[in-house]
């Protein structure tokens, strides 16, 4: 009997102590971490959407943690302890079969895009292997009053009728659109006003800042960098081939504003967003998010120069100073 007590009891006691030390005590401690500045609890519908996210296992393919590594900069600033105050169950995830979603509201800031993407991801990202969540939508003959149907591209749309989101899809999109990092307090000022280096979540901003500091003139054109930024931020809607999505997201290829020698309109659209614009007789209703708050002048200039030179476009290149001028003039609009 003594042997049994020694082996079974002794080892269990040791394990009990280790479990306290490695799980329970850190758990207690870290459960008390106060929310970081600007980190707010979810609204009712966002919380409902989070439940949809949890119940359908979104985090088996999408993380919500940005590591302090160069490769993660594209997803935002490194996550801090205060970011997770209201996150139970935690959704950090362990695999990135798909991209990190910590900042998805900033990176894919169009609700319409989110709806189309959920209905069938391949409608906007041809190479995507994400499941279709068409079962979160309904197909009806005509949309009820006050409900805007989802503008699913023809190839992916049902043969007849229109697609409208169920409550589940609406809640999920509300949750996704709530996913953006709060700027860290000491970076807030820089991030909110003119964002020269945009450390507060600008995609690859620090990476971009480095070569600039290394002596590259701020007005220099970096087309590779512009192409990368376009891929990270813009291609989701305007597509990698610049053709957009017929009737939903306007084309940049052959676009008058993009090819206009005067780039003010082009710069303005990227900085402050756009809605309801008529291009070639088609009115584009889905709002384009403003990028001025997340991207610095140099990054925006690189994107614009890529757009002005790709797909047969021939707009005059712009400089970071041009972007700063438009930003200064129209800030506060």
């Amino acid at each position, binding site marked *: 009997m003594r042997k049994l007590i020694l082996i079974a009891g002794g080892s269990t006691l040791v*394990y009990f102590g280790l479990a306290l030390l490695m799980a329970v005590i850190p*758990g207690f401690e870290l459960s008390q971490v106060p929310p970081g500045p600007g980190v707010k609890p979810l609204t009712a519908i966002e919380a409902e959407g989070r439940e949809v996210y949890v119940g359908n296992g979104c985090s088996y393919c999408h993380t919500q943690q940005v590591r302090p590594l160069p490769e993660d900069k594209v997803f935002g600033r490194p996550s801090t302890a205060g970011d997770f105050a209201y996150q139970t169950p935690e959704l950090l995830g362990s695999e990135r079969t798909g991209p990190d979603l910590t900042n998805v509201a900033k990176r894919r800031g169009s609700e319409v895009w989110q709806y189309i993407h959920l209905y069938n991801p391949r409608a906007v990202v041809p190479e995507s292997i994400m499941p279709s969540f068409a079962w979160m939508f309904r197909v009806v003959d005509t949309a009820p009053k006050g409900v805007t149907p989802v503008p699913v591209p023809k190839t992916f749309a049902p043969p007849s009728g229109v697609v409208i989101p169920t409550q589940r899809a609406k809640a999920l999109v509300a949750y996704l659109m709530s996913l953006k990092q709060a700027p860290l307090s000491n970076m807030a000022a820089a991030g909110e006003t003119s964002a020269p280096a945009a450390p507060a979540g600008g995609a690859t901003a620090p990476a971009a800042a480095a070569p600039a500091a290394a002596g590259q003139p701020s007005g220099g054109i970096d087309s590779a960098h512009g192409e990368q930024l376009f891929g990270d931020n813009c291609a989701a809607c305007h597509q990698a081939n610049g053709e957009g999505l017929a009737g939903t997201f306007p084309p940049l290829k052959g676009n008058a504003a993009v090819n206009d020698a005067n780039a003010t309109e082009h710069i303005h659209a990227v900085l402050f967003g756009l809605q309801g614009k008529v291009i070639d007789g088609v009115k584009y209703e889905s709002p384009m998010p403003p990028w001025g708050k997340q991207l610095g002048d140099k990054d925006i200039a690189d994107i614009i120069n890529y757009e002005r030179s790709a797909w047969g476009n021939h707009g005059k290149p712009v400089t970071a100073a041009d972007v700063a001028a438009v930003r200064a003039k129209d800030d506060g609009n």
Partner: protein
Amino acid sequence: MSFFISEDAAGDGDSSELARLFAGYTISATAWLVFATFVAIVLAYKFGAPDFGSGAWLTFGRLRPIHTNDTFYGWASIALVGLAYYVAARSCRTQLYSIRLGWVGLGLFNLAAVLGTVALDLGYSAGDLEYREWPWPIRLIFVAALVVTAINLLATVARRSTDDIYLSNWYTMGGVLWTVIIATVGVLPWYQYGLGQVAVSGFYMHNAVGLWFTPLALGIFYYALPKLLNRPIYSYALGILAFWTNLLFYPIIGSHHFLFSPLPWWLQTTAIVFSVAMLVPVWGGSANFLLTMRGRISVVAHSYTLGFILIGVVGYLVGSTQGTLEAFRSLQQVWHLTSFTVGHSHLTMYGFVTFAIWGGIYALLPAATGKRPGRLGIAAHFWLAVVGSFIYVIAMSIGGTIQGLDWVQGKPFIQSVIDIGPFYIWRGVGGILMFLSHLVFAWNVWRMTLGHGVQASAAQAGPLATEAV
């Protein structure tokens, strides 16, 4: 100390009831294996055909936890407990404390797994907290099953007719008792908010593997190897050293699943340090098994049962050493969050734990029931499983590395999805072979239990006695 296991049990009175219980656990576990890996085939197919089975009940995010939880708690847990009961009664030369409690435990394990599967498929998940996604009331049923098992195992060892407690029972009793603590820590809600829950997740997901499946599978090695080879384990003392070092080091390393996360840096660094310390029990244990086999290569080469165990030992050695390497920050930077991890988890849970279980079942079940599967059946099972899992692990390791390098090079994310594509297909090929091997295994289990197997010869367990030659 040499411990020689003799075939005769003192309490032959219950041997047919024990055999029935052992068979019951094995059949039930096998059913879960076939189900959970069928789900896996559907999941693997979806990587190439994402629009396949796109309804709510078949969506990837619901099926994925069903696959992991059912392989963990349906297949491996039930199979290992069945083996642990048999090993306890035989190595203690006594009767199982309570056959009835054994059946009650089996019922509880199955109840938890069935309810858990249904809940997850309906979208009721406790959160994407790996291996504890079942809603908490269901996890309490699993805890109850563990408590029943612990009582039964301890009471059996307490009534042993041997003086010593054989090493296998150290591992199995310890594993069950510690897992009661792991499962309880995982369920209690008071310290699991936000980042606090991340800390508990790191502890839970790792300990549920290394202090549940690992000790029980090692317990099987320590019993089955000497029995099949008719020689004592190479070093009993080394086995004890591995027992205590595994217990001391393993619980500390869970946070290495959250390297570079906002968890306190000291917690992550401690986890890395002890991940290296884990080489002591891993290499000590593996050396012990390999040295026990030394000089008997021809015997091993002629016995698929020993082949399963050999693969299991190598899987333990390679998988665990790989785990130590993966814990280094420099390598995590490339491999973390990629499919490399999926390869690692299959190398360990499949290459080690599942092969250990198979070796144990082929070694012990025929002795219990008096029926053997055909040699062709074991051979088909062995080769399909070995080749399939080899393809699987290699595909995920290469594909995951490419994914990680794409990210390091700053390529657009979608490029990593495109680049790993071919390796998803190879994974599917390996997975299908693995699944076929499970069907063959189910047939073999049928022959060893309810069906007409080959009559097992004299109870004297020569190395080949459990296989029809």
